[in-house]
């Protein structure tokens, strides 16, 4: 055997040894963790396994989209937490994307006043930790006047330390969820058809509003008006939609912070559009709006979408800070469940599994969106 072959053999053996060592070490750590966990849990008199999911919890929490009692089993309560996380996450994703695009475009504006305003906004909200903003905002919200002295806008929207009261459609919660899903489905259909951006957005907004009106006319309970407006009756408000103060805090804080981040992503995307394209639009006599919606944004979207997807995942993860103000997101429910039931490992596994699932789904969606937006091959 030549010297070179021998060296090659030796290198190969070393690589195998390193990998075997790594596998053995990982296995050892996992095995060690399991055995230690078992002895530790036995010492505390805890049984492992998912049997506790059937037991009722016996404790209450702040917010749920579905009716809840303290007799609900752990499985149901955890599911409520999961729904709350998704609910806040998707609202935050929608609002941050909307405002992010508006502010990002403003950062790119030729008008210096608008640009300054957008820059000030981004520099303030991006550079303060989200959790500090949330706690700060929550402190302000709970120190608002009570319902009887609620701040009101045109006597239809009220803000007090109990929450935000908005006028709402007279539909049952089930119909509302169906409407939301239908609106999302419409959005997905519109994206998968390659139609111009501006038409797509207009079609989606118009279609969603139309669906709401039709649903309100067809599905409202007997004798109800089309829209209910919150009214002060005694010490509290009746009618309309009440958004609890924790939810208001969560949505506003995440939206303020997240839209500043997305604005930077959008600005970065717009900055990468070659100047010649804009000038070509100007030479053709297109209006500023048309240049933005037909040239700049479609081009910019291709570099915006991958980092935008990361921001969406960040937003979903950011819902965990609800625990700081007592909003019952999944993390909050899991941490209370751990103190109440002691099933730490199982609950952490559920928590991690839920986030892997949701963030994996978001990543798949972003990739799909990215593939949709790719330039057609010439």
């Amino acid at each position: 055997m030549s010297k070179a072959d021998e060296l090659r053999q030796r290198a190969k053996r070393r690589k195998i040894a390193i990998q075997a060592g790594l596998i053995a070490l990982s296995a050892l750590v996992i095995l060690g963790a399991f055995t230690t966990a078992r002895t530790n849990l036995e010492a505390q008199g805890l049984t492992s396994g998912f049997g506790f999911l059937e037991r009722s919890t016996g404790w209450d929490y702040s917010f749920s989209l579905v009716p809840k009692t303290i007799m609900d089993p752990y499985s149901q309560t955890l599911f409520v937490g999961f729904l709350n996380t998704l609910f806040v996450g998707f609202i935050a994703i929608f609002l941050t994307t909307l405002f992010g695009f508006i502010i990002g475009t403003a950062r790119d504006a030729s008008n210096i006043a608008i640009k300054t305003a957008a820059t000030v906004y981004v520099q303030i909200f991006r550079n303060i930790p989200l959790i500090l903003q949330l706690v700060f905002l929550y402190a302000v919200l709970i120190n608002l006047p009570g319902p009887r002295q609620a701040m009101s806008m045109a006597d239809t929207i009220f803000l007090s330390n109990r929450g935000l009261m908005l006028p709402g459609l007279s539909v049952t919660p089930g119909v509302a969820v169906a409407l939301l899903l239908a609106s999302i489905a419409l959005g997905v259909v519109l994206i998968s058809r390659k139609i111009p951006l501006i038409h797509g957005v207009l079609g989606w907004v118009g279609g969603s509003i139309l669906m709401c009106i039709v649903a309100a006319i067809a599905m409202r309970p007997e004798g109800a008006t089309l829209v209910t407006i919150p009214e002060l009756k005694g010490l509290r408000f009746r009618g309309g939609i009440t958004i609890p103060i924790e939810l208001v805090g969560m949505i506003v804080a995440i939206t303020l912070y997240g839209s500043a981040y997305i604005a930077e992503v959008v600005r970065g995307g717009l900055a990468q559009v070659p100047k010649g394209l804009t000038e070509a639009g100007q030479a053709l006599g297109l209006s500023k709006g048309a240049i933005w919606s037909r040239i700049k944004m479609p081009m910019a979207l291709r570099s915006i979408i991958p980092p935008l997807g990361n921001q969406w995942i960040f937003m979903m993860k950011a819902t965990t800070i609800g625990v700081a103000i007592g909003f019952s997101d999944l993390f909050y429910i899991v941490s209370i469940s751990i103190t109440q039931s002691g099933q730490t490992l199982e609950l952490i596994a559920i928590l991690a599994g839920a986030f892997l699932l949701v963030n994996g789904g978001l990543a798949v969606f972003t990739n799909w969106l990215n593939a949709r937006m790719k330039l057609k091959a010439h």
Partner: protein
Amino acid sequence: MSDLSVTAPTKFQSITQVLKKRAFPTPTQSALSILVFGVLAWLAWSLFDWAILRAIWSAENVGQCGKGTGAGACWAVIDARHRLILFGLYPFDQHWRSTLAAVAIIATVVISCIPLMWSAKRIVTLWIVGFATYYLLMEGSLLGLQQVTTDGWGGLSLTLFLFSSVVLLGMPMGLGLALMRRSEMPFVRGFAVVLIDFVRSLPLLVTLFTAAVVIPIILPSWLEGDKIWRVIVAFALFFACYQAEVFRGGFQAIPKGQFEAGQALGLTYWQTLGRIVLPQVFRHALPSTINMVVITFKETALVIIIGFFDVMASAKAAFGTGEWAPYYLEVYVFVALIYWLFIFSLGQYGEYLKGRMAISER
């Protein structure tokens, strides 16, 4: 378009020219500009009026706070409670140590920004010296001072401690993970990919919570360590997984020929890496690394949830007593300002570097 006289465009326009072109080109644009500038000016004035003109500064005058509608910010609460916010529960007569320690960390960060320090040896020495200074001063027993254990640390000093130890620990971990991820050995690569993707798809809070609550269950008690160290290691792992991706971006910018040239010269893997590739990777990854460092500083605020007495927790404690309870706004503004100053200046520095590198690459 009738005026065809051509004047050479000048690079520098006067302020009036810029304003005319960028703020008042058409009547509608002008109206918009005036409106937006008006709102901004009004906001700035209101803030200035509240925070400076009508504010009450001294703790002795706290009686005037909140009296009547004309009262502004009550900075008296900061005057009275700033020690608690900055140093937490650290022994009162030892606060000078906490101050010096915090200065050591801030100085380390500032000195790291000087290009003269950008060699592996210098920057590593600087951070280790800075961190050791901090630890020796805060802990005290090795310097013959009164010993203060980590559970006595708090406030801004604790935030800076968490931040610096996470960066110091996480940076080599991140580099290690990045190297593993580009290894030829499938199991080594797979290990890194799974770990990085797993940690990155979990919220940081879940990672930290796991370290605080789960690790004591799955590790034998002699390996458990203090809660603060467990949390720091978990935080460093989080940092490392993101930083590994930053380094990966840096590696991708290096042409393959560089490695091959190293091999052709007979250099070993580590020599090629250390002398040829890594210096370039660091340079490419610098702006994103600063971004990661900024994010880490921001995220340290999360440790309040798992029960650490960081600057946010001490802020809460500062207005927690009945007397100061109405002045939560001032305390939060003060803490927000501390964070903002630090994050904003580091962020601007990152932007500046990015711009400088973009020019040098042309």
